[in-house]
Structure formats: C-alpha cells, structure tokens
C-alpha cells in the first residue's frame, strides 16, 4: 500500500535497481498472437531452465528484494509484430528472437544467456541482404516507428505493477496530484494538440473542458475499448500489454474534470485484455493507486470493467453509454453531448484507449514535447494496423504526417510476393481508399479528410493489383449493413439497398444505371443517418467509385472482373499443356471439383467449383487460370 508520493518514488527506485541489477531480462511475448503460436510453453521452458540454475535465476516472487546479479524471465504484451512470433526479447541488449519454438529455448539459454553469444538463426534477417539484425530497434519494421502509446508494449510485464512503476508509471499521476491544478492539466492537454484517436479526432482538451464546466457532483470517465474496426488491434494491444497506462490515463482525466469513477468498456472478443485489465485494477487497488485518497492527495478514483457483447455500433459513444447502463446499444441524438449529459445523465468524458494511453507521456514530458511530434494540426503519433498484402503485417506507431509510402514500403516492407501496389483502405468501414497517386500523401487528420478517407481507428489494409475494389466495397458494405442498429430508415434500408446493388454489380447482373443509383443512395444514407455508422458507411463505396470507376464499369459493361476476383464473372480452368498431374489441387479442393489421374492433366468440374481460388494459389506450375 503506497500512502504518499515518497513511497511511490521509493518503490520506483527499488524496482529500477532491481531491473538494473539483473544481468539479463528475458521477455517472452504473451499477447494474443504469440500465445496462439505457443509462447506460453516457451516461457515455461525458460522458467524451468532458470529453476535448474539457481545461481543464475532470480526469484520471480513479487515482493522479494534481490540485489545480486541474475537473470529473470517475464511475460510481456504484444510487440505488434505477431507474424514473426513467438517473440522473445532479451534485455539490456534489446535482442529480438523471432518464431521461437520450445525446441529453441535451450539453445538461447546456453548461448545467449550463459555464453553471451547471439543465436543468429533466430534473429530477424534483413529482407534485402539477408543479414541477421542484432537488436529490435534496428529492424526495418521498428526503425521508423516512434512509440508513445505503445512505448511499454513488449517491454514490460503487464501483470506486474512494479514493472510499470519502474518505467515511470504513475509518476504523471503523482505530478498532477501534487503539482498541478485541474485547470493546468486541461491546459497542458489543450496545448499538446492531442486529438481523439477513436476516429473522430476531436481535441481531447476541449472535451475535458466541457465536462469540467458542466455542473453536477458526479462525473464519469469512460474508456472506449470497443475497437470495432475489423482489422485494427491497437487498443487490444495496449489493454493487454500495458493496462496500467490506461488506468492512469483515466485518472488523469478524472482529476482534470472532477470525476471519481470510471468504466472501461472492452470488446467481447478480447478475453485476454479483460483478464489483464481486471488484474491491473485489482493490483492498483492493492497498491493504493486506485481507491480512496490516492497517495494521500485527497483524490479518489474507482474503475469498473464492462464487457461488451458484440455490437459494432456500441463503439459509438451514446450507444456505448446505453450499453453500460444495461440496455440495447442504440445511439441517440446529440446534443446533449456526453460531456454534459452522459452515463446516468451525469457529465461523462469518453476517450478511446489510445487517446488515454498518450496522456501519461504528455503530462510527464510536457505539451511542447508532444506537439513537436507530427504536424501542426495533427500532433503526436498514430498507431496503424498494417494488414493485407503487405510483407510485414502488424501494429506500428509513427509520427502523424508520415507518408503512405513510408509506412507501406519502409516499415511494411512493400507488398508480399512481389505484388504491385494498387490501393490501401484506411479507417475501416468508415474510411476510404487511397491509391498510387496518394503514396506521398502525409497521413494526418486533415490531409486524409481532403482525400475522402479518414484516419479512423487506424486500420490500414494494403491491396495489390489482384484485389477487386468492388469486392472491397462490398465487404465493408456487408459489414455495416449487418451492424446497423436499425434505428434510422436511411441507414437500415439504404445500406441494404447499396449492398444489393453491389452484389448485382459483382455477379454480372448490374447495369450502368446501378452505378448512379449506388451514388444516389450513398448520399441519402450519408445525409439521413443519425450516427457515424450510417453517416460514414458509404465512404468505401464513394472512394472506390471515385478512384476506380473503370473497374466498376468493367463489371457492368463488359461483365468482367479485371482483378479476377468476383467469382460469378470468372471460371477456373486447368491449362492441360502446363498441368503436370501432381494432384495437389485435387487434394486441396474443398469442393471435390477436380479430377484426373496422376501425371495426367487434371480438369475442373465447373458445376462443382465454388471458385474459392485454393487451387490457383497452390499449383506450383501455374497451370490453373481464370478467364
């Protein structure tokens, strides 16, 4: 139990000394991705080896003091490079071992831990010259990143509050509690230029000011961890990898606006995040960092965790409030804004996870430091979830205003399998697509808005020439149509109508009138919907129509899908002159549509073929073709 700022500082010094005294610190990634790849077994084996070498091992028990030399093993949160997992980081050198299998642990232990020699084969190898790269920071994927919100992810043990405290955790809170007035805190956040990372981009300081000025005894802080954009996972990573940072961010907001209670609303599909958050809240209470009279300052704060139940629209702030209150998560008109009348009618600040994760650093390092990162109207950093046909998928955090090219090619390593860049879809179902002509576009709130897209939550799907833009638009339209809460007719019926039109275009029965109809409907939905879901849902259609109209036209005029994706517009055939009769496609075809004798040319039964594309992607001789 920490009763004063001094006690917090003492604990920090102790925790730091503890880390400093270790000769080596092994961090095994225990994020969702690496756990799925078996990292917990890897961690266990490290622990076991440490147990067999007591002279090396340092007790893992939480409260023990140890000043002797040693090695310790910990779990960490996601590094964002899950594709290369399970990842093992070894400090202080900052070595990153990739795709570590249980069978590799003994070698890492013997070589790296005991003999101080790198295990070269497990290091990341440069894409270009194939040379091993010694430290994590030098890997191209990380080199151009600038981590603020994700600073601790992969570097600390999310289940150990002392690790957080050692890395300056709860110092910002102590600073505001003992050195700053609430008004000064708000001014600092205003000056930093921080804008909401949940999609809207509203200045955080302004939002806080509204809530501070709103009357009433009871106020709430809500952390929006609903992360609805399918394909974005930055909020999950922070909740899993650095949960105390979110709690601290909420307390900073609470102190600034005069709230003493908060809710974290977590998406239903994130069981590990829920577990880590619960653990963090419990530990923080135990250490006196949550509860009554925190550090003897007189400030009290309580955090509750609410699990969502699977509805995208609940990410919208008024729907989220309804959901916390136990109701159906349907948006309601604003004003009143939640900052004036939110949870149970009380003034409520709703901030996104990533927004909150930036706050401790802003308070600690100052508004000036933060506003120097990025560009004038979009300060700081933004995380992006790189996905799709890019060589390195994963989570990256970069200064605002980096160009699309820098992100996709320098950090993402360009397209996989030597594909040619065609477009990116940015901002998920509310966002839009950008094309080759935007490669030099700086990614910030205002530039993106001008191009018809948006930062959104930061989902960034990279697409190669073999991606059909009609299919992409159809995919997102299907998503929003399914997720529309049904309250507004334009959203409910309009998205259904748009999806139908897109289906027709994709299956070859569309006409040119359908294209104009699609545009008309898009405008009706945009103008007639109550909440952001409906209002922004036509964006993917509108931007693909704007930048790839000829592709739509090919579907309706020539009944062709130029990218060779829309199934109804293509047939799979095996070119008998190329087929070697290896039988691989026959084995893999999920529809049993391929026949043929070994070493004889095979053929596809078009009646049975479901056009899944498996055969074409697996044939080693390129003998399967589409028309």
């Amino acid at each position: 139990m920490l009763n004063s700022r001094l006690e917090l500082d003492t604990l920090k010094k102790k925790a730091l000394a503890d880390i400093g005294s270790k000769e080596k610190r092994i961090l095994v990634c225990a994020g969702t991705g690496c756990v799925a790849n078996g990292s917990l077994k890897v961690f266990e084996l490290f622990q076991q080896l440490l147990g067999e070498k007591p002279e090396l091992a340092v007790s893992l028990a939480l409260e023990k003091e140890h000043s002797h030399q040693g090695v310790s093993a910990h779990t960490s949160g996601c590094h964002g490079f899950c594709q290369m997992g399970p990842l093992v980081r070894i400090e202080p050198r900052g070595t990153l071992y990739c795709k570590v299998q249980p069978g590799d642990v003994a070698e890492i232990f013997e070589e790296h831990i005991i003999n101080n020699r790198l295990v070269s084969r497990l290091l990341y190898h440069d894409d270009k010259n194939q040379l091993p790269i010694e430290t994590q920071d030098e890997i191209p994927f990380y080199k151009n990143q600038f981590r603020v919100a994700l600073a601790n992810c992969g570097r600390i043990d999310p289940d150990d509050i002392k690790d957080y405290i050692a890395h300056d955790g709860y110092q910002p809170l102590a600073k505001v509690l003992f050195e700053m007035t609430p008004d000064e805190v708000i001014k600092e956040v205003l000056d930093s230029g921080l804008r909401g990372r949940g999609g809207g981009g509203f200045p955080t300081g302004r939002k806080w000011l509204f809530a501070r000025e709103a009357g009433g005894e009871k106020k709430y802080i809500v952390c929006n961890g609903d992360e609805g954009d399918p394909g974005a996972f930055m909020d999950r990573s922070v909740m899993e990898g650095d949960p105390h940072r979110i709690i601290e961010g909420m307390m900073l907001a609470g102190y600034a606006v005069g709230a003493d209670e908060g809710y974290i609303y977590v998406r239903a599909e994130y069981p590990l995040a829920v577990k880590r958050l619960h653990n963090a809240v419990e530990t923080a209470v135990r250490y006196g960092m949550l509860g009554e009279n925190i550090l003897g300052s007189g400030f009290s704060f309580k955090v509750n965790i609410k699990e969502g139940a699977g509805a995208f629209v609940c990410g919208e702030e008024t729907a989220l409030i309804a959901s916390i209150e136990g109701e159906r998560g349907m948006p309601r008109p604003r004003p009143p804004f939640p900052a004036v009348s939110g949870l149970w009618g009380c003034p409520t600040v709703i901030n996104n996870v990533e927004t909150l994760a930036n706050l401790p650093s802003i308070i600690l390092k100052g508004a000036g430091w933060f506003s120097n990162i990025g560009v004038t109207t979009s300060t700081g950093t933004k995380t992006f979830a790189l996905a799709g046909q890019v060589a390195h998928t994963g989570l990256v955090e970069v200064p605002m205003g980096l160009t699309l090219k820098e992100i996709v090619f320098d950090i993402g390593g360009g397209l996989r399998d030597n594909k040619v860049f065609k477009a990116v879809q940015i901002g998920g179902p509310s966002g839009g697509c950008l094309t080759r002509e935007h490669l030099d576009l700086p990614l910030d709130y205002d530039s993106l808005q001008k191009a018809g897209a948006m930062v959104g939550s930061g989902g960034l799907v990279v697409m190669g020439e073999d991606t059909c833009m009609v299919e992409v638009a159809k995919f997102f339209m299907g998503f929003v149509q399914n997720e529309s809460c049904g309250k507004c007719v334009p959203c409910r019926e309009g998205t259904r109508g748009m999806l139908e039109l897109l289906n027709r275009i994709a299956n070859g029965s569309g006409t040119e009138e359908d294209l104009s109809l699609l545009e008309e409907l898009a405008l009706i939905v945009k103008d007639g919907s109550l909440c952001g879901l409906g209002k922004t849902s036509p964006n993917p259609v509108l931007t693909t129509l704007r930048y790839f109209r000829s592709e739509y036209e090919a579907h309706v005029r020539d009944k062709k899908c130029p990218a060779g994706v829309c199934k109804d517009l293509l047939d799979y055939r095996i070119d008998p002159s190329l087929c070697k009769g290896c039988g691989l496609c026959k084995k893999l075809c999920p529809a049993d549509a391929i026949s043929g004798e070994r070493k004889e040319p095979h053929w596809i039964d078009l009646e049975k073929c479901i056009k899944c594309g498996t055969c074409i992607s697996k044939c080693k001789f390129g003998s399967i073709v589409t028309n």
Partner: protein
Amino acid sequence: MDRKFERLQEIIESHGGRVSHLIAILQEVQEEYRYLPEEVLTYIATAMNISPATVYGVATFYTQFSLIPKGKYVIRVCDGTACHVRGAEPIHFALREDLALPKGDSTTPDMQFTVETVSCLGACGLAPVVVINGDEVHGQTTPESILGAVKKIVSREQLKENKNSSETGCCQNA
C-alpha cells in the same frame, strides 16, 4: 424449482439484481447454459422486475447472445478485414463442407459443432484466424490446418465416448 433456476438466482443475486448489469448477467447465464433458453429469459425478467420485452430486446440486440443452443465446440472463423483479404472464406466453406452443415444452419445435428463468422478477433497479424471455444486461437490457418484441428477434436470425443460408453445423456454439467 429445479437446480437450473437456483444457479440462475445465484447469478442474478451476485449482481445485486441491478438492471445495469443485465448484459453481464446474460453473459454469465449463457456461459452456464451455452445459450439463453426462453424460460430463462422470462425468469430473469421476473426476478429483476423488468419486462420480458426488455430482456428479450437486449438478448437479441447483441450478437454474443444466442437464443438457440450451440454446439459443444463453437468454431468462429474471423472474417474481419485482415482475415478476409487473406482468405477467410475458403476456410469457412471448408469447415461447413467438412461438418456437412445443412444450408442455413450453423450447428451440426449432433450438437457437437457450431461454425460462425466473427469480425476480427484482434489477432490480425496472424490472419486468417480461427478461434475454438473462445480461447483456443489458431493463426495463419489454411482449410487443411483447420480441418486437422477439427479431426483432432472428433477423435478426442470418440475416445471419451468409448471410455464411458455406459453413460448416456447430455454432456452438460449444469
């Protein structure tokens, strides 16, 4: 009152019967019964002193809740953006074919498997992703790899079946 409602009452009481906890209550109840039977919804409404329409409205609004029983193994194929572009569809198709799911149904007649799609599990770096029973995450899957996982489950179940071949009835432990 049978045991079924006893446990129900316990869950409601552990939340102090608060209406704001309705979603959490339904989540726990569903965990217990694997779905939300109609009489359970009615019971909750009465016990919490709210209208059955309110409970029903909430239960049908959120995709997590199911008013029909699901299989013992719920296989969720991610069809979020990252997984979609990396080939989630063939995986979904292969599973449905392999388990011979009738058109329009997502659960096998023997109540062993349910196959659903979900929009993003947050493990997008490992696309395409499939999760079995909530926490068994399979990454970078292919139709073959996921059918292999299903096969393992099936043989494990058969083994169990053989072991307690004398036992009959339901596997639920509620």
